[in-house]
């Protein structure tokens, strides 16, 4: 740790690196949860579209009516494929001073939130996730939601343990 007037030279290479972190993957059952929620999402969209064509079918130009089913089909396939492979990319890691969450298939991202910048955290369970005994850990930071973090696909026990670990870390960071 640096005191206020210490100014040691930092060897960038010697800093703890993201490359050395071993990530823990999210639970495998989370894939099922993702696929079910996607299924429900698309079911609602398709029913909505069907009702639209029934009600206002004659007002929509023929060309567009012919194109839309193909567009929808492509979008459905793409989202399912991304969900299928994307879940495997999701992982998290706790370090001494921060928490890291990685995700993304086409757009990969690794987000690190230092414990000293966390305002509070909580464990949540959605209806579908509850069926499969999974929970989400939400990490809140100050100032809007852009830097908040949520880690899905955790066993409730794991989520609770992580939560108390983070809370204890926040507390000890404050005391120093």
């Amino acid at each position: 740790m640096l005191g206020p007037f210490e100014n040691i030279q930092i060897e960038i290479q010697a800093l703890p690196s993201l490359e050395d972190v071993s990530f823990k993957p999210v639970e495998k059952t989370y894939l099922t949860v993702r696929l079910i929620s996607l299924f429900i999402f698309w079911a609602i969209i398709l029913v909505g579209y069907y009702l639209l064509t029934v009600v206002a079918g004659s007002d929509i130009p023929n060309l567009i009516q012919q194109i839309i089913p193909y567009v929808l089909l492509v979008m459905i396939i793409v989202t399912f494929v991304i969900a299928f492979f994307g879940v495997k990319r999701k992982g998290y890691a706790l370090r001494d001073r921060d928490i890291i969450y990685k995700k993304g298939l086409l757009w990969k991202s690794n987000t690190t939130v230092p414990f000293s910048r966390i305002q509070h955290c909580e464990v949540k369970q959605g209806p579908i996730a509850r069926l499969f005994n999974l929970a989400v850990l939400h990490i809140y930071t100050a100032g809007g939601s852009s830097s908040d973090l949520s880690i899905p696909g955790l066993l409730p026990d794991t989520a609770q343990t992580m939560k108390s670990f983070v809370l204890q870390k926040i507390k000890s960071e404050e005391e120093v």
Partner: protein
Amino acid sequence: MIHDFSVPNRQSIIAIVLIIYKTIRVVVRQVWPIIIIAFLGRNSSSYSSYVLPAVIGVSLLSMIWAVISYFKYYFYIKDDELVIEKGVLSKTKLNIPFDRIQSVNFQQNIIHQITKVKKLEIDTAGSSGNEFSMEALSLEKADALRDLILKRKQELLQFSTTEDAEEEVLEVEEERTLILNLSIEELIKVGVSQNHFRSAGLIFAGIFYVLTQLNDIGLGVDDRIEGYITQGMLPGLIAIVVITILFLMISFLISLVRSVLVYFNLKLWRLGDKYKLEKGLFTRKETTAVDQKIQIMEWSDNPLKRLFNYFDVQLKQASSVQVKSASSIVIPGCNPTHVKTLQNNWLRHMVYQSLDKQSVSHHYLIRKLLYNALFGVLFIGVVYILKPEFILFPILFTVYKLASSWLQYRKRSYAVTDDVLYIGRGTFGFHHAIMPLFKIQSVSLTESLYETRRGLASVNVLTASGSMLIPFIPKDLAMKLNNYLLYSIESSRQAWM
């Protein structure tokens, strides 16, 4: 006069007038087309017979409501908390601990100024965040309350960190330097060099809004306009050019008037460790920003501003809600010396001068060009199929997007020193942002498929008031930067907000 805030206080009696004024304004904004109809009285006699009484009824009710809620509103200070009790039907009690208060700001519109009161706004941060405001407090009461809160807050802060608090508090109170005071001439310059396209957009939106409102109540003008166009009364390109010029002239005037109103007699003070800004002609606004709360400092220009050699400076503060302009202080008309002064005051002994600005990978340009070209081709294609007579518009738009990609790439730069992060960007103007490393909230290392294939990555730096992006840099560099930024946050013990 010494005010006792430990007993329940009421707002100034003027608050009633202001609450009524506010309610009526809201009502009028909602129903103005109906009122117009009612007064025009044409072909709607049955309509107006019940509209007017309804409007008057609502206004009366709101007046009664205002009076009752005024008498049910108390505030007092207890145990280093500001307590507000209010509510007519359901009672609410709000406790705002002093250490959660981010800033206390004043606002005065014309009614406030005549009646010598101030509107008090209290900004808090935190995830549960809220803002509180008191409609009207007498001038000295408002000042006394703010001073009390800020002083006590400072003391609390000092007690928790160091012992010799008293001394510093006193020292802080004494310094008071005027950094900037806009003269009329500078004010005109600021007005002239505003972004007129934005005002044009606003007018356009305004006209559109009025038209739809009128349409809704059956005074449609769409058909008439359509009629002119089909009859060929507005022949093509010449008409468009004339309208555009007219439009820009009006926009120019409006933004000029607007800046004069908003920035009239702007004064920026440095008071100890905070900035105080006063501005406005009819509505005099007073805002403060404490160094510790300021997360990012930005200064930007456009070609016109560069001609006048000045920048708009923005001090972004941590805010509970999504980053809004309300939580950041905008100071127009700062010349380079002012910018330097502001930086010096805020960053103090940090290393931030002589930044070694790095540019981003040329793939950033290529990706932008590819993306805009693809989008442009689609756009042109769709217009060609649907409305081939307007083909010029998407072509010009695409050319503009391609040209601005080049400009944006040229202006993208970043620099990291031991203490600060700098990001430069912009299209026609330059936009600079600087922040101390220890104020970063979290760091995100991202790569798109395009970046992965070329061994590149982006670093997104998230703060309590918005994010700063370093796009398209070599992957190993991005990784190092990620590690370094995290190290800087985690090894810092300074309070960051």
